[in-house]
């Protein structure tokens, strides 16, 4: 669904309840929340809530639905409604990267985004990357280089690193240091992460 579609007022004059009924019947159409549309400053503005609204998210290739208040973050929706707890809540204000997921292939902080805003996008969480029996190359590199301790920042680091190395296969270590500076680790596993990065890209110092 493109930006234009998302902004389209979902039938002014149609009550939320009516829309929900329609949404419930047409399962093939991706379900979106039904904002009220108010005219503010000469523009149509979508207004959700404050009551719960049906939210449909495309997570790891599956459509998942939950009734959520509009103030629920994407992170909390993933963790609480869908039990996808690999993304961690740490700073809860878009600083540390422990909740990193991909929104249409781009790494984002899931705690810094509302679930309703993630509708219509393709969301990938750590659970969508692989299983413990069948790890991805990034995960194997982290394992072999022991780039983890308590593991709480680890899923976020894996998501950020995988996105980084796929986009920058020829990065230098300095590039990677900067590129991954949006993720923080408390146990101090950065040396292991450096080694994993070197293994993944054959990158050199400088």
């Amino acid at each position, binding site marked *: 669904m493109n930006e234009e579609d998302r902004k389209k007022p979902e039938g002014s004059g149609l009550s939320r309840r009516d829309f929900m009924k329609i949404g419930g019947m047409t399962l093939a159409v991706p379900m979106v929340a039904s904002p009220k549309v108010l005219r503010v400053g000469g523009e149509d503005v979508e207004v959700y809530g404050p009551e719960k609204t049906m939210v449909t998210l495309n997570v790891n290739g599956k459509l998942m639905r939950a009734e959520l208040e509009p*103030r629920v973050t994407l992170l909390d929706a993933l963790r609480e409604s869908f039990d996808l*707890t690999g993304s961690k809540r740490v700073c809860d204000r878009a600083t540390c990267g422990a909740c990193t997921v991909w929104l249409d292939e781009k790494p984002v902080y899931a705690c810094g985004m509302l679930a309703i805003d993630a509708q219509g996008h393709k969301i990938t969480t*750590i659970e969508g990357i692989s299983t413990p029996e069948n790890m991805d190359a990034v*995960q194997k590199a982290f394992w072999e280089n022991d780039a983890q*301790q308590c593991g709480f920042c680890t899923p976020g680091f894996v998501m950020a690193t995988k996105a980084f190395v796929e986009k920058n296969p020829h990065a230098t270590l300095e590039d990677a240091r900067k590129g991954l500076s949006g993720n923080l680790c*408390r146990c*101090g596993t950065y*040396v292991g992460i450096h080694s994993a990065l070197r293994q993944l890209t054959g990158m050199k110092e400088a």
Partner: protein
Amino acid sequence: MADYKWPDQQHRSYLGKKIDRLDGPVKLTGRAKYTYDYNPKGLLYGALVTCPYARAKVLSVDTSAAEKMPGVKALKVVKTPGTETHWAGDEIVALAAVDERIAEDAARAVVVKYEVLPHFVQDEIEPPKDIPLASGPLSQEDLEDMFSNQVPEGKIADAIKTRGINWKPDEGFFKDLKGYGVDQVVIDALRGAQVKPGTAGPKSPYKRTAVQTEGDPDKAFAEAAYVVEGVYGMPVITHCCLETHGLVAEWPDQKSMNVHVSTQNVSGMAAQMAPMLNLSASDIHVEQQNIGGGFGSKFGPDSWGMHAAELSKMAGGAPVKMMLDRKVEQEMAGARPSAYGRVKVGADKDGNLIAWESNSWGTGGVTGGGSPPLPYLFRIPNQKKQHTAVSCNIGSARAWRAPNHPQASLLTECALDDLAAKMGMDPMDFFLKNIEMTGPRAKTYAEEFKIAAEMIGWKEKWHPRGDKTPGPLKRGLGLGLHTWGGRGHESHCDLTVHPDGGVEVRIGSQDLGTGTRTVIAIVIADAMGIPIEHVKVFLGDNKYPMSGASGGSTTSGGVSSSTHRAAVDARDALLAKVASSLKAQPEELEVVKGTVRVKSDHSRAMTWKQACAKVGPVGITVRGNNPDRTKPPDLTNSGIGGVQMAEVSVDIETGVVRVEKLMAVQDAGLIVSKKTCETQMLGGMIMAVSYSLYEEKVMDPTTGRMLNPNIEFYRLAGLPDIKDLRIHLHNTQEQENRGVIGIAEGAVTAPGTAISNAIANAIGVRVPFMPFTPGRVLAALEEHGQNAMAGGAM
């Protein structure tokens, strides 16, 4: 007779080798479940109403609106009217609701009225010199202070007799003291001491403790050829565990409780919770598979954990999750005590240390906190020292990796480095000249200095204070050394060999990410001579045999000793059962790489699986213990140490410090799991880079609130801050013979000191207080008129 010694080189398939950690895949794929991730059906979410003032008296608490909100299932007033609070963030009300948003709304709907009281949060100010000596009854902390300051035991006993004590020690306490080797004279004094409980706290924020004199410091200073005096210090920092503190409590029935808790102390949790809930410890089931960081701050259920337990009971047993939010976590769930000191040291004309004087101070919260053992490592013959505990209205201190050691190391070794600079001596030469003062470890330190110096290129790169290279970027070298105990704690385990060849061990320990699971599997696999894949480790459950809390680097020594003994016993029991099938005596058999065979005739052999099939339908189960005097030798030991050297670059125009290199040489006894050991050491070094450059619990003197209770302004080091860090494990045969010793605390102590000394070496002046932010670096340059150094760049 079983041989419980650690396997020799020929029998080590895993021990001391680089083995990938067992829990790697489950953590890397996001499948590892932490307490925060536990979402049982019917879960209620806890929330806290906390006090916004640093000190206040609660006048009224109105919860009526909150209780009426739909979805609120239980509510408890924690601080009733009339109660005083002592720090911003202190809990007033705890409640539970069907979802987190409702819980937060309900917390906001509680109306609390306070009388705001005066507070004090400025621990960095040097206390006045004329504070009277404390004369009231001694607290347990006072006692610990005296022990850590090596006050002679006769003097401790005298103080107990004249001042009394403010608590009644039980038999367990006396037993612990004996266990620590405390002299009987102190224990007798405590038994006979007058107990004066409930004494009011001091009115002044300052309490002088640990006043002590040895030798004749005044005379020694008068005779000294070189004397320097300086002020050094580090502020309160937080633990900042990525997984905040908290637990999920549920009551399956009125008489039992299940707890999922983020803890370093699985086996010890139930006994702490039970009395307050009118339960027996045996009624409480504690579980934890993974923990998102502890660093010394997660040993108890904490007050909010107890609230969750009570709220769950009030809500008919429904599970209540009470995980602190980041703000409250930073405010009250962990702080390392600050330490500052005015330190004077003197040496004779040949560079021999002869005199020490220190006036140190610091805070660990309202009760004051511990004092660093000064002077650190070096037993300088003439000493005068006193410590002042500063009572501040901040959340209470908790143990933080190597409690008191980074502080003591900084205050001592920076002063020694300044003295070396005054003498125009290379600090490595100066430290080595006086290394005998460190006692029995002196020879090891000397060896380690040489290795570290080679790793960093000390001889080629070191220059006297103040890098004279033109341009704003100045480079410098610095060093530090440290020590720690690390003896294995009490640990028990049950080990079962199943008839299908599988081996499982059950142990009430925990893996903090330090590699506990991996250590256990390595030990068992090598003791039994089987592939590591055969070993399954079950921990994190208090229904397994008790194993100690993970604090003070005691876990590796403890769990490796208990599981090793169990593995040896189980292997021998197995060999006894299969010996006749191989027409041999049990002692003629060995297990090598999964094959059971006769030592002298390898053709008489069977696979591990074939052997296990002969033991009967229930296999073999044995108990392993540490310590176990019936099964010598002692497999663990105490006392590790190391030397670290740092190379920094400092931009004297911007004040930005970068740690370019950090090299660590560490003796560590027998290494079990080399990979996780190295990771743990590097982790300590990185934490030290972080606290040296960035970390500080910033308190606002006016409001008494923490100004950075988050992660964006409570800065942690990131990937760009970490450059060339390397370690060398100094595991000589002599070291290996000492057995397994924990290494976690050691690595975090010396780097801060080395970085401080390297900065002084680079820019020619000492930056007195951590963290070494651009502002502090520029201020130090300014104060010493050294900004002229920038002239080279013009």
